[in-house]
């Protein structure tokens, strides 16, 4: 992505924006009634422009997943605001949610756990359409076939169950299910982890194709900084529940300002160089 282009995108109004988001969990200590709170999010700001890919990075436990669940409205933040397409949505009632839910979708990391093992592929894809009562009967069936084709699954696999599919195929199935409701904003929660490199590349290409075709906005949560460096227009770095850095990809990777970001990048570079050295050593 070119720098001017990204800068121009940054000037356009945000697609989704989080303002001062905080969330804490009350935990009960084992074998006692003492309670204590864990701050998962602390005054988090985030802005995602339309039709871009923003990567959310940070170590595990830094609050990435909580932020994702809040944006997907699977959890309510304690305080703060979430703006989506010009509306504040964090305190939506069930009526507004019915309208909102289809527009914001999430694809989980663990595709095996995110698909009901008792369902067939067709049932999996049809589920959101059934819930939203978009289609029914033969129309539903043809829409399911369409979606399977779009994500590169043969239509005659409709009766296979998730556990009969490979990891990549399951992820395709999950993607087909997520785009069935024609969302505008997709949260990819570690969706590319746990796949081998070539599958990862294929799924990534599929996601980028879909982005072009439907002008989707992506929020990619990932551990894999080399992947992020490749694809992200913007990068947001989280550390211990706080958003420590947020900006265009090149800026962050080129001149990280926050100490934690440097640390994060440094460790990756270290591993990478060690890996290359090992590879080089192996080839000799």
């Amino acid at each position, binding site marked *: 992505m070119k720098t001017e282009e990204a800068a121009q995108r940054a000037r356009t109004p945000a697609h989704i924006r989080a303002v001062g988001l905080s969330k804490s969990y009350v935990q009960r*200590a*084992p*074998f*006692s009634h003492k309670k204590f709170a864990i701050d998962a999010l602390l005054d988090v700001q985030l802005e995602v422009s339309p039709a871009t890919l923003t990567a959310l990075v940070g170590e595990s436990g830094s609050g990435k997943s909580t932020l994702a669940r809040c944006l997907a409205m699977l959890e309510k933040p304690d305080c703060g605001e979430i703006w989506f397409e010009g509306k504040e949505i964090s305190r939506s009632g069930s009526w507004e949610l019915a309208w909102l839910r289809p527009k914001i979708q999430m694809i989980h990391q663990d595709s095996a756990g995110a698909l009901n093992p008792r369902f067939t592929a067709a049932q999996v894809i049809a589920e959101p359409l059934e819930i939203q009562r978009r289609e029914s009967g033969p129309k539903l069936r043809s829409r399911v076939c369409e979606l399977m084709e779009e994500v590169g699954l043969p239509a005659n696999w409709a009766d296979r169950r998730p556990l009969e599919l490979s990891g990549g195929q399951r992820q395709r199935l999950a993607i087909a299910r997520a785009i069935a409701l024609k969302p505008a904003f997709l949260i990819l929660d570690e969706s590319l982890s746990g796949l081998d490199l070539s599958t990862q590349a294929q799924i990534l290409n599929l996601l980028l194709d879909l982005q072009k075709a439907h002008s989707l906005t992506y929020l990619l949560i990932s551990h894999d900084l080399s992947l992020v460096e490749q694809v992200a227009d913007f990068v947001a770095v989280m550390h211990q529940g706080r958003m420590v850095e947020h900006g265009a990809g090149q800026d962050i990777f080129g001149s990280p300002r926050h100490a934690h970001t440097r640390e994060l990048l440094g460790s990756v570079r270290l591993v990478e160089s060690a890996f290359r050295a090992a590879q080089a050593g192996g080839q000799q």
Partner: protein
Amino acid sequence: MNYLERRVIHGVLLLAGVSVLCFAFGVMAPGDFFDEMKLNPQISPATVAALRSQYGIDQPLPLRYGRWVESVLRGEWGYSFAYNCPVRSLLMVRAGNTLLLTTLATLLAWLIALPLGVWTANRRGRWDDRLGLAGTTLLLSVPELVIALVLLYLAVRTHALPAGGMVSVGFGGLGKQAQLIDLASHLVIPAATLVLASLPLLVRHIRASVLEVLQAPFVQAARAHGIGGARLLFRYVLPAAANPLSSLLGLSIGGLLSGSLLVEVITGWPGMGPLLLEASLARDVHVVIGAVMASTFFMIAGSMVADVLLVVLDPRVRLGST
């Protein structure tokens, strides 16, 4: 608050819950003890009404419950309409007899089940394990009612044992030793019934938990170190199997108590069973509630004993103040 205190408070709360439950059911039901009197033409309706108000039956539930709690605190445990005396005096003797029977049966059942369970677990898949499994399956399908009847039948046919009651006629005239023998011979049938009825489940659970421990890596490692026989069993296997077994002890006491009610009625053992049955038929509400409370108390106390035993046996369970 330490562990034991918390358990005791929990137990008391449970007992309170049971009493509320009993009262709730009792009041939802139509009719009461004095309904039968109304049918009697010799007793005037005014007398019945007077009796009802005297015993407080015409009052609303919370008030009646309050009066009952008050009498529990005074140590009376309510008032029996049929016997015209406080429930406590009725219940104490009967509860003691039930306790004698169930404690004896629990001890015997565990004494038999423990070696059986350990043995069959050690001999997994061989002929004696299979025999044991078939035996427990068969015994599991025979209800206490049937076991008691069959044993009673055998006793009566062979004249080897007394057929019912707790002591023979003329018990008071016997010497101390003869009294003990007489009591013991009366105990054989009810106790044997309870032991036979609780044995299959005990053996199965003991076998299963010992088997699980036997397959655990640390036991395999101990074996590889050349530890075997009794040392392996008592130092490694049984302590590790103690946790599931102690909760089984609590459960088995519950099963024995319910079973003992029936056995007592059939064999004429003067425990809480016959008292509860009589009171049920006469609708003597406070006696009924007293018997339920006493049996629940035994059950809670039993599972507490089991927990304390567990603490003694299993070093992993800590009694911290956390």
